[in-house]
């Protein structure tokens, strides 16, 4: 199982043919208290880096971009009633959705955990 990050602060965890997507701890912290997650519709097809979902916090409303291309196969329904899960556990229980049918070659355009940590340092 391996985990990658985008420059827009999404993470994607690859487990066989399933890609689980969320936003990074850093992004959740920057957004502040999250009040609403606009989950994608199951079955929705997106291309890598296209808009996948939406997220609103007390500070901002942002888009969540797809780290890989594919079809949405599951969404984290718990976020409908408990969007604060993203603040509490951005990279685990606060996952947004799962996707299938991605192209492994696309992972080359993403960062691994170490590279992302370096990238964040550069943003400071």
């Amino acid at each position, binding site marked *: 199982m391996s985990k990658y990050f985008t420059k827009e602060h999404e993470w994607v965890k690859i487990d066989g043919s399933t890609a689980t997507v969320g936003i990074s701890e850093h992004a959740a912290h920057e957004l502040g208290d999250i009040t*609403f997650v606009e989950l994608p*519709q199951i079955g929705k097809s997106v291309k890598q880096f296209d808009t996948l979902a939406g997220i609103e916090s007390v500070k*901002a*409303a942002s*888009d969540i971009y797809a780290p890989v291309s594919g079809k949405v196969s599951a969404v984290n329904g718990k976020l409908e009633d408990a969007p604060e899960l993203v603040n509490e556990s951005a990279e685990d229980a606060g996952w947004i959705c799962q996707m299938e049918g991605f192209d492994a070659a696309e992972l080359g355009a993403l960062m691994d955990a170490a590279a992302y940590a370096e990238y964040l340092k550069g943003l400071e």
Partner: protein
Amino acid sequence: MGYCPNTPEEIREMLGAIGAGSVEELFSAIPKELRAKSFELPAGMSEFELMRIMREKAAAGGAEIVPFIGGGIYDHIIPAAVDHLAGRAEFYTAYTPYQPECSQGTLQALFEYQTAICRLTGMEASNASLYDGGTAVAEAALMALRVTGRHAVVLDASVNPLHREVVSGYLASLSTGVVEVAPKGCESDLDLLMASVTEETAAVIVQHPNFFGSVADLTALAAKAHEKGALLIVSCYPIALGLVKSPGEMGADIAVGEGQSLGNPLSFGGPYFGFIATRKRFIRNLPGRIVGETVDQKGRRGYVLTLQAREQHIKRHKATSNICSNQSLCALRGLIFAASLGRQGFADLALLNYEKAEYAKALFAAIDGVSVLNAGATFNEFTLALPKPAAQVVARLLASGVAAGVPLSAYYAGKENALVVTVTEKRTKAEIDALAGLLKEALWN
């Protein structure tokens, strides 16, 4: 914000700053034929002179015409409380709550307006109003595209033709397919509407009662739309909802309409307001402002603008709509109207409209050569077939001080002899009887 025009001195300064020699040079990029020909307005007038001219104009025509015209805009009673309360300076001079939470009175009024619209339409969530009926239908169509992620709508051709034009105008640049379904006589063709809904359809758009005055139960249509994953948008006439089933009761997903009939005068076409209401689960896709109720730090009730992340000052080009204002003052009149009448008053008013229209319908249908084209029930509006072109008859009756109705020839091919007549509670028995007499004379003498 200053409202004083610029002085010649200031104009010179501004031109100097941008390096333009004259106002003429500044506008030279705009082709001459597209520019204003002249700004030479007549000289100012004293208040007395102006009042005399306006009184003369009012007396010269219009005021004495008895209207049997509807077609989306209706001549209804307006209780004195509407002018009095809406005219209070706290409401009348406050344009928009730029610091919304400091404007608790305005927010509370809009919150109560939203409540009234929800109760009328049988829906769960309303915004703080839109511009007018036509843009409300168009905004509902856009909302359905967002909710479903689809790119086609089915539009009943017995929706107000002016509103259909606004819808087409809005959708033209969005590569959205608009399938228009022709009516069957004066009835919406429910079977064909149902057959036209596919897995690609975002919404079915109908009007209730339709443009010809016919009332239909849309419950089956709603079920069919939902079966295909589409929404049902119902544009409704609020006064009729005192008597006929509400969009919510029939399973509609979005209820919209022209709000003029709620406490706003005809005023030669505006300003009016549009309303839009929906199911709670679609609330984040509503356009415009929404007022919410909350409590402050000490637990006291207060009002806020809520769910603002949908709006363009936050979401920019990804906002649910480019509408960034609303028709607060007109909507407030609508609220005061509804509150003045109350639930029973509303039902009584609707029944009075229906009964007067039924009386008129029977009377006109008894005229030689005249028949009613609606096959089923109507509310306060119905369509007559005349033995002569309707526009001609209307023009002739206008000279006798009666506006007999809306001739359909302007909007529908092959309906030259059809006339839509509206009878509101304001039309007296004497006026209805007089129109019957005038009609008979115009048709046969």
